């Protein structure tokens, strides 16, 4: 409860018109960012605990769920450095969703399996050079693996198994001009 309240408190502060519109002084903007970050981190402990219980994983640090905080610059330490990744999609809506997922990865060949072991159509798209060249971006991801979540149930989740394979398929559907 304390973790959740940490973010609740921050969201209360963020109702101020300066936070909504961005008319706060810069040091206040920096402080807002710090508060939000700490709120996220507190809640992520709850999320991790819940997901570990749902998925039956041990809480020994090896099977910890995380989220990609740098997805907005197409970077994710977990997905770009792993050969095998389990992706869990949680749908917060009250009806089914079929959102597309974009995972930052290194170039290669990947397969995506759903919870029934069936292959899910996926593709590898290059990350634009303007993103890769951002001076503060520290990531080895050069591509994004794109696939569609299949009817993720309302307020529920689906999981996918993403694995990197040895060689790139020469019959890739990707075409560049």
């Amino acid at each position, binding site marked *: 409860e304390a973790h959740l309240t940490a973010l609740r408190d921050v969201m209360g502060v963020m109702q101020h018109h300066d936070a*909504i*519109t*961005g*008319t*706060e*002084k*810069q040091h206040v*903007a920096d402080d807002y960012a710090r508060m939000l970050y700490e709120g996220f981190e507190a809640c992520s402990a709850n999320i991790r605990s819940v*997901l570990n219980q749902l998925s039956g994983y041990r809480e020994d640090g*090896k*099977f*910890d*769920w995380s*989220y*990609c905080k740098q997805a*907005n*610059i197409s970077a*994710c330490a*977990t997905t770009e*450095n*792993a*050969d*095998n990744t*389990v*992706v*869990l*999609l*949680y*749908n*917060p*809506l009250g009806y089914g*969703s079929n*959102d*597309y*997922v974009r995972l930052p990865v290194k170039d290669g060949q990947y397969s995506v*399996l759903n919870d029934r*072991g069936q292959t899910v*159509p996926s593709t590898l*798209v*290059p990350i*634009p*050079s*303007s*993103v890769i060249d*951002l*001076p*503060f971006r520290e990531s080895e991801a050069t591509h994004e693996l*794109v*696939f*569609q*979540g299949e009817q*993720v149930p309302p307020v529920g989740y689906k*999981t996918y*198994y993403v*694995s990197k394979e040895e060689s790139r398929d020469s019959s890739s*559907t*990707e*075409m*560049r*001009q």
Partner: protein
Amino acid sequence: EDNVSIGNEHVSVNFDENGFMSSITVHGETHSLKQNFLYYDGALGNNEEFRNRSSGAYIFRPNGTEKAVTDVVEIQVVKSDVVQEVHQIFNEWISQVIRVYAGQEHVELEWLVGPIPIDDGVGKEIISRFESDIKSDGAFWTDSNGREMLRRVRNYRETWNLDLVEPVSGNYYPVTAKIAIEDDQSRLAVLNDRAQGGSSLVDGQLELMVHRRLLRDDAFGVGEALNETQYGAGLVARGKHWLFFGSSQKDVSPTLQAKERFLQNKVLLPSWPFVNSADNLLTLDDF
């Protein structure tokens, strides 16, 4: 050498020889639809005079008319069965990806703007502008914090006679979820992922301000210029617009507005992806 087109069975986006989006084809009908990035120079004023203040955090006061950032866009095209994308580079500090996912009826535009150059000593406010052939007759709609859409009429206020001395900013409205125009046949709506200023300054046009960097305080209280930096350079912003184009007819079921509303929920409350690599110890059997 051919003009580029991306799309699916519902919608196709076509590009001209200079790399700009030029038209959209929806259910077999093609309509003119251009998109470009432009910028307004921020006004440098005397804050002691009410009508001569600088553009700043609180107020948007362009100094003159907008300027296009380029005449030619460098593009790269990626096509697959899952998604088709055109990667556009407008200049050293503006780029964009326009994409259409398989089975989806909307177009996604992922823009990246910054660091906005200020070497010339002038602050700039960057907009993404869409130009269509819709005869919008001065009217456009903006949302009210994601709820009902409010009708706005250019150079007009409902309850008093308007003497508008700021023709651009005086027609800007807050857009937190959607801005739209329509005529008897067609409708264009753009959804955004964050609060932005937006307007329709000419019939058939929509514009949204995506980033700003200003060098003067506007004397409305913040006491600082809106000149944010990170790692010693101006801030870079990356975000998304989702574009719907189609019939404005109300007897179509579901209407375009209904589709926009569902999409709004999906893009503003998207599925949360969590990842777990477990130090590469997770086997398929574990899964």
